[in-house]
């Protein structure tokens, strides 16, 4: 009897699962198709390139959020954290510009990465050491980071030094062989994220913790450390997004990054990652970010709805997309 069962053993791993994984990409394809039908300009190479490039921010931050959410956490502070990191980075670059010249840019970027990671560490430690709901902690730090950037800008704005602008611009506007830098950076971040999540022990532990924290603890996984590190990764990703963000807008204001947390979480969930943790789809998140950006773009291109109702249509499309996803991926 047992021999018969073991003979079936070498089965291909989860063909069925892969099909469900495709859902966000199918949704993306459908929305792109709809966009093309609604507005002929949508498919213009230029437009598509713009949309893809700007979805980089949400996608990059989303990679980090995928880690946090996979461990069963949630980070509402990312939008404010972005603003704070952007502010610190600009201040650092401006301060270093006189002595370092153009080298102030990489130096400032390094500062941003450190600050971003530290912000994430702060969130992670309060949550794991203090054992408080991530929702509450990051809601608190959201207020804290937002207040800091307001204070740093004196309620106004904080611009990058003119001497650095030209040198820094290509980080958003430049391209490698026609592929814009932010897209390249997104792909690199997502590749690294996917590698860490799917191909390293840490990634394995991330999903284990999100799946059942008790089991992980009984198996000797340092649950707190895994969770904290996920928040650090989130902070690091926010800093990477900040580095791409500054050359585009050149300034930090108290409204920078406002409500991005909701967009990021939406992208992650549309991408197939479960909010309760235990499952993570890095590439789904990237697709989710693209979906959101495409919807916004189509809304701008089409003149069909009153400007007051744009938000309603966007909200409805997201819900409909999730519903369609649910009912097509028959269970």
């Amino acid at each position, binding site marked *: 009897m047992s021999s018969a*069962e073991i003979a079936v053993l070498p089965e291909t791993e989860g063909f069925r699962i892969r099909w469900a994984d495709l859902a966000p990409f199918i949704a993306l394809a459908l929305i792109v198709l709809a966009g093309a039908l609604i507005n002929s300009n949508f498919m213009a190479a230029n437009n598509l390139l713009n949309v893809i490039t700007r979805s980089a921010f949400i996608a990059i931050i989303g990679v980090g959020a995928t880690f946090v959410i996979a461990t069963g956490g949630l980070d509402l502070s990312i939008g404010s954290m972005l603003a704070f990191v952007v502010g610190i980075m600009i201040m650092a670059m401006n301060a270093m510009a006189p002595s370092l010249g153009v080298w102030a840019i990489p130096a400032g970027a390094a500062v941003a990465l450190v600050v971003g990671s530290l912000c994430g560490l702060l969130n992670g430690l309060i949550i794991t050491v203090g054992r408080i709901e991530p929702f509450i902690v990051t809601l608190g730090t959201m207020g804290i980071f937002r207040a800091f950037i307001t204070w740093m800008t004196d309620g106004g704005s904080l611009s990058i030094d003119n001497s650095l602008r030209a040198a820094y611009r290509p980080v958003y506007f430049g391209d490698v062989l026609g592929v814009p830098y932010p897209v390249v950076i997104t792909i690199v971040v997502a590749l690294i994220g996917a590698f860490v999540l799917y191909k390293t022990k840490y990634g394995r532990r991330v999903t*284990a913790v999100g799946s059942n924290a*008790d089991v992980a603890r009984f198996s000797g996984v340092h649950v707190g450390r895994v969770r904290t590190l996920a928040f650090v990764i989130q902070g690091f990703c926010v800093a990477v997004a900040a580095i791409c963000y500054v050359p585009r807008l050149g300034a930090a204001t108290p409204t920078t990054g406002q409500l991005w947390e909701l967009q990021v979480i939406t992208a992650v969930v549309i991408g197939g990652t479960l909010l309760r943790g235990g499952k993570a789809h890095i590439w789904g998140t990237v697709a989710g970010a693209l979906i959101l950006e495409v919807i916004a773009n189509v809304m701008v291109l089409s003149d069909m709805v009153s400007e007051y109702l744009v938000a309603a249509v966007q909200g409805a499309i997201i819900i409909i997309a999730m519903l369609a996803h649910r009912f097509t991926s028959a269970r």
Partner: protein
Amino acid sequence: MTAPMPTDAAAGDGAGAPVLRAEGLSKAYGPITVLRDVTMDIRAGEVHAIIGENGAGKSTLMKLLSGHVQPTDGSMSMAGRAVSFADAVQAEAEGIVLVHQEILLAPDLTVAQNLFLGRELTRGLAVDDREMNRRTAKVLARVGSPVRPWVRLGDLPLAQRQLVQIARALLDDRKVIILDEPTAMLANDEVDSLLQIVRNLRDQGVATLYISHRLEEVEALADRVTVLRDGQMIGTWPAAELDQRRMAELMVGRELSGLYPAKRDPQDAEPALVVEDLSVDNGAYQGSFTVRPGEVLGIGGMIGAGRTELIEGLMGLRPAQAGRIAVNGTRIDKQDVTRLMAAGLVYLTEDRKGKGLLLNERLGPNLTLQALDFINPGSRLRRNLETRAVRGAVEEYDIRVRGLSVQAGQLSGGNQQKLLLAKVMQADPKVVIIDEPTRGIDIGNKSQIYRFIDTLVRGGKAVVVISSELPELVGLSDRVLVMRGGRFVAELTGERITEQNIVYAAASSGRDTAKRTRA
């Protein structure tokens, strides 16, 4: 086959008419058929035991009968009337209730709230908590549980939760009560009172379906016995025609040798594990013990004696203070699962669903989670190492699984236990502590697991076994420590390891009487 011929006919043996009849029931999950063409009837006033190996399909059959799962083929009838259940609620309305093998209760509700969930008593608009608590206390007393009705369920030890679950089934008048391994988590005392309850139910004309791997219970209790093997019905026999050995043979389809391996000669060696003055918050006090290589140390005691707490404290899984802990001569100053594993000590939990396995993950991630650093050096995950480990474990521990993409939660209980054993053994430990090693394991697998333990010990390892099954403690242990009220109260060696001595040590000093009066 050495067994007598199965008797199918009602054969005027005094039992009542069939209350529930299954006709050609089958169940398939996708392409895999787990139950094939089962035809049987259940009569009023009988205890009908279902036995079979792990994964034979017993739980599946019970879920079909109680509406938790719908059959892919076949039909059911009650007193000649065709019935089908869309869900468990419909089955309960017909008087059929299943007590699950796993605990299915809401941890945040109180005991009484759980018992009455979905059928709360009301007075006017408001729920009648007083009456529900009163009735709950009554039915808990029937199953011999000292638990108060208003205690939060999540604060109870597993065994007490199991009793609550049984109590829930007894709350209303039932025609058919299905008990799926009700005694797996219970110790002798509770088992005795449970058996008495089942007998009372039989006298009241209730039909009881009883699944257990403890064949002595089946022998003591059952009127008829149905044997399942590999999803198929082997037959139904009057219990009087079977003894334990025959039941075992029918289950596995071959002859079985002795259940327990021969004991080993004691060795003189430095202790592999030394524990001194270990106290665990709200659970155990100043426990000290040692285990030598080549020795099986049994730890006995009643439910709630604090055995699990002591070991979880030792492993750093609960707040605890220790005088001295040494593994293989290495002194451990901070208890932590990973450090202890590195020093050579591992622990297998009694709560395999809640704390042992990731039920939604496949075998590989489960198997390698704990010993990942050991199996897979470096920080990169190497799938080939994982696959190799899985294949090795499936072979070595005889895990019956239909493909590597199966999730741990889809394995039968016994195979989950084997997977868990394989998981903690991945790091090649020197000392293994196993809490309830054969909970929910069939007799064939049991002897397999005993043989694993024997092999380990003969290979120079030390094994600590916590068990509520006295024969198991007696059959396996070279030395037995008995706990009571969070403290060690007796040490038994050699000839003195007997069921009577263990029970005496575990239950003496008026505990029994105290408990009975409280119940």
